[in-house]
């Protein structure tokens, strides 16, 4: 390999990588903008609408937007739990709460109290302070790129060979097409290698490092369940 090739080779792949990740970045930013606009609008409707049921349905949009934001942040498992627990359970509970109390379907002029102006002042002042602090501290700090750029990423090949050697048992390393066969096996299991890391790490740390908080949460949920039944039960 000549010196020029040594210099050009990595440069070429680097340029390719930057355009590829650049395109993904543009797409991610466009989706982020769409999701953010929907979320902020729906959140405004939740706190300003005069119809209680509409507020709950706008809350569904906000919670779904949060799940989409989790996907953008590569937290797929948290996104699925968000959809299951929030949209599947909490919103239904809130709707039950609305139905069991003042089931005034339609407009209700009496939803806000007399503290609207102080509330606006508090919220705007809080937002100003928080935005200033965030800009001051993080300015234009970027989130790190995903660990692997694709199935042909050498780092992913090393990772697969180290962590899952049983997948490559049938191959002989001395074979000429060994590298190609390894890449083929990784491509067959692309979804596995792209998606498994975060979820696997989450489950590993919940059931090892965070086992005591996890058990505490279980007891808390049980206590909350019993408490809710005792409170809401008719005498």
């Amino acid at each position, binding site marked *: 390999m000549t010196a020029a090739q040594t210099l050009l080779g990595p440069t070429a792949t680097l340029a390719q990588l930057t355009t590829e990740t650049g395109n993904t970045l543009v797409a991610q930013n466009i989706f982020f903008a769409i999701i953010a606009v929907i979320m902020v609008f729906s959140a405004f409707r*939740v706190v300003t609408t005069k119809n209680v049921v509409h507020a709950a349905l706008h809350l569904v949009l906000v919670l779904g937007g949060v799940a989409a934001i*989790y996907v953008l*942040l590569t*937290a797929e498992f948290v996104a699925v739990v968000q959809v299951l627990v929030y949209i599947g359970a*909490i919103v239904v509970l809130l709707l039950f709460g609305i139905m069991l109390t003042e089931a005034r379907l339609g407009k209700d002029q009496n*939803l806000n109290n007399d503290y609207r102006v102080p509330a606006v002042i508090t919220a705007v002042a809080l937002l100003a302070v*928080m935005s200033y602090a965030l800009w001051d501290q993080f300015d234009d700090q970027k989130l790190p790129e995903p660990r692997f750029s694709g199935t042909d990423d050498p780092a992913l090949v090393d990772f697969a060979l180290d962590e899952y050697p049983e997948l490559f048992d049938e191959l002989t390393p001395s074979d000429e097409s060994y590298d190609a066969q390894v890449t083929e096996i990784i491509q067959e299991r692309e979804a596995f290698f792209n998606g498994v890391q975060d979820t696997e790490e989450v489950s590993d740390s919940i059931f090892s490092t965070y086992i005591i908080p996890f058990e505490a949460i279980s007891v808390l*949920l049980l206590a909350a369940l019993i408490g809710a039944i005792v*409170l809401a039960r008719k005498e």
Partner: protein
Amino acid sequence: MLLNQFLLLAAVLFCIGVYGVIARRNAVMVLMSVELILNAVNINLVAFGRLHDVVFGHVFALFVIAVAAAEVGVGLALVIMIYRNKSSVDLDQVDLMRG
């Protein structure tokens, strides 16, 4: 993607939630606003977890979701109790402790 775009979105959601908690009269609406606040916190946790490439952010977000579920369960039971005793969920009328 910038870290700040996520943190600012969470800040906006948080402030909208704070406005809702202060300005709403209906107890169920206050609970909804509390959900907005908890979700803003969760976005922050996951974003910082992504920034440092650690999984703890996800774990804490999951714990916050579990606590939020418990909170809504107990909160709605309380709201139903208040409604049964006062025939209203207007928080301004729950003033037994006022001197």
